[in-house]
């Protein structure tokens, strides 16, 4: 290992396929290195469908597949200064659905919620559904208009975060 990492031998500038694989294997674990510090801490996860989950990160892998314990889904209706929560236990999240995740400071976490009114989850999820439908409508309209000028508007129904 240590020899192959040193300065290349004269006339051998390119690394061999075997060596390249070795390097690639190491790269696979940089995703891991990025979130390893958040294990056993409370995190939030934003999913591609717009859902927001809060929970304790128990484990993960290089694809950012996650396992969350004591998971709570939260919906913000910021226009009306309301929010709703739904407890859903243990969640396994497939990595491709993750938009972003971050560690939450549990001391400051509730600060914005104090000024907000909690409403039943069903009510909030219905409001969110309406908001998403409106967004889908306006985005697909935008897409059609841009297509008229030969432009691509990158929007998918599943990406409503």
């Amino acid at each position: 290992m240590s020899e192959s990492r040193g300065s290349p031998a004269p006339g051998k500038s390119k690394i061999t396929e075997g060596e390249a694989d070795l390097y690639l294997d190491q790269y696979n674990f940089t995703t891991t290195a990025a979130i390893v510090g958040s294990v056993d801490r409370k995190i939030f996860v934003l999913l591609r469908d717009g859902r927001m989950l809060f929970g304790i990160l128990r484990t993960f892998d290089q694809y950012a597949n996650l396992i969350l314990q004591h998971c709570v889904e939260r919906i913000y209706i910021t226009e009306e200064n309301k929010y709703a929560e739904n407890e859903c236990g243990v969640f396994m999240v497939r990595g491709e659905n993750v938009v972003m995740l971050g560690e939450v400071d549990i001391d400051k976490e509730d600060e914005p919620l104090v000024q907000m009114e909690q409403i039943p989850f069903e009510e909030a999820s219905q409001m969110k559904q309406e908001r998403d439908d409106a967004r889908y409508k306006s985005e697909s309209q935008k897409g059609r208009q841009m297509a008229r000028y030969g432009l691509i508007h990158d929007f998918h129904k599943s990406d409503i975060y």
Partner: protein
Amino acid sequence: MLFFSFFKTLVDQEVTVELKNDIELKGTLKSVDQFLNLKLDNISCSNESRYPHLSSVRNIFIRGSTVRYVYLDKNMVDINLLQDAARREAMSAKK
């Protein structure tokens, strides 16, 4: 691998990331991987009204596929070095 190497030179510098949902996050770039997933520290958000809890978030992991732009400061980029690297990559691809 050029962009991956390029982003690695930006580690520990302050960048602003715009996501495809129009949210802008500013923070110190802590790590990047081959999918251009980014990890930011000490984040601040341009419009915190949409995600009120972001004020209590210290570090954030962003999946590369959801990033639209990364804003960089002009003097963070060594253009000559970047051009050189781009040429070298193109050369090695041709061989």
